[in-house]
């Protein structure tokens, strides 16, 4: 009697186990599918973002190359600057170079080098760096460099009397490489591009730094 009861209980248990297994085995692909769909979507979104970033940076680098060509043309028309005891000659060369570049880029405006796509790429990379695990160190670097607010305009000479804010070196590792003589600048909350030979601001993006 007891044996029969036991058998019945075992059979009931195995039926439940089979049903559970079947349910689980049926649900795994469904669950997998549910889990992987957002991941796949996120993956494709991330690929899309990376492509957009790469395109933005590519566009930026092409614009910088174009600027570099223009600068070379302008420089050819000036005597080359060599080390000198005469600070007047250094100052005169800097101003002459700046004036000739401004003349050659009379119609230059914000966004000529940092285009919309380029600006978006810079904003994303900079914001990611500042919100990342080393973000605190990046903030500290900027604050140690005595940041200042300056109302920027394209073709403006960066005032020699003002300090230059340090550009966080780990940020420089992830940004597009620039040709010699052109450098990134942090000016208040803005991110600028400076022709350091002419001390000239050649383009900028407003409000990049969440200071």
């Amino acid at each position, binding site marked *: 009697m007891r044996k029969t009861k036991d058998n019945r209980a075992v059979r009931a248990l195995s039926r439940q186990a089979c049903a559970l297994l079947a349910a689980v085995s049926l649900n795994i692909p469904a669950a997998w599918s549910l889990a992987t769909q957002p991941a796949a979507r996120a993956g494709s979104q991330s690929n899309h973002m990376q492509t957009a970033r790469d395109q933005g940076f590519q566009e930026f680098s092409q614009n910088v190359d174009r600027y570099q060509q223009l600068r070379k043309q302008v420089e050819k028309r000036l005597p080359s600057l*060599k*080390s000198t005891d005469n600070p007047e000659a250094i*100052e005169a060369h800097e101003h002459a170079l700046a004036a000739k570049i401004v003349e050659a880029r009379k119609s230059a405006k914000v966004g000529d080098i940092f285009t919309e796509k380029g600006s978006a790429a810079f904003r994303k990379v900079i914001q990611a760096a500042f919100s990342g695990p080393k973000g605190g160190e990046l903030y500290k670097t900027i604050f*140690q460099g005595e940041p200042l607010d300056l109302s920027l305009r394209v073709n403006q000479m960066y005032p020699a*009397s003002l*300090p230059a804010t340090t550009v966080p070196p780990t940020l420089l590792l992830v940004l597009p490489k620039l040709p010699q003589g052109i450098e990134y600048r942090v000016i208040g909350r803005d991110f600028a591009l400076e022709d350091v030979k002419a*001390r000239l601001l050649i383009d900028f993006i407003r409000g990049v730094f969440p200071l």
Partner: protein
Amino acid sequence: MRRIWYLWVLCLCVWSAAPAAQKTILPLEPGSVRFVVIGDMGTGAAPQYDIAARMAELHKSFPFDFVIMVGDNIYGGKSPHDFAKKFDDPYKPLLDDGVKFYASLGNHDVPAEEFYKPFNMNGHRYYAFDKGNVRFYALDSNYMDPDQLKWLGNDLRDSNATWKIPFFHHPLYSSGATHGSSVELRHLLEPVFVETGVRVVFSGHDHIYERMKPQQGIYYFVEGSAGQLRAGDLRPAPFEATGFDKDRTFMAVEIAGDDMFFETISRSGEMVDSGQIHLKD
């Protein structure tokens, strides 16, 4: 009688105001590398001239060959008049004696200073030069881009110099309340320094004098008060060995073989720190 009394009081005052005679530890060994370190000096104000006069005075007893500048060489305007007032005039006696100055750029400097011949930068914002058994590296810590990092790492690895001494503006360690340690820069530079056997590093930026306890075997100095001063800016820090923030200072250094001797001298002529660093300690 009263006149004698006044004379006696006057002598006593002069004696008490004069800095205590401190015995120099600089050995003046033949063939040694002798130099001075200054930073944050280019104000053109009286304290810069006072320190420059102290340096010229020291040059008579400790004939150093060159000066390294850890940045902020010319504050404010950069006109020819500024170069004269903030560099040529204060250091004229030394320049006239043939002492060379090697500059690195601070955040108050402009890249055009690279072309100013007396700064010996030869148109480069970062560069290296040799003096005896020492190779010096003037770095641009305003803009530590991958090219500079790569150049520095390669040159340090290739160099057979006994001593390799980098100098630059932003300190990797500093107890200065105003700026403090440049931690981000430290994470990039210190592993290279450790790997390539750097033992001594000079920086400025904080307007104080400070010597750190060895960090990963490296002696870091902040010498940012050869013109500017932030009195009372030092804060307690576990890495500090000693510091001085009461007056302007400069450092005199001599490297003889495997030993480096240094003295830090204040505007009043007081020796505020001194010591000896052995290359392999």
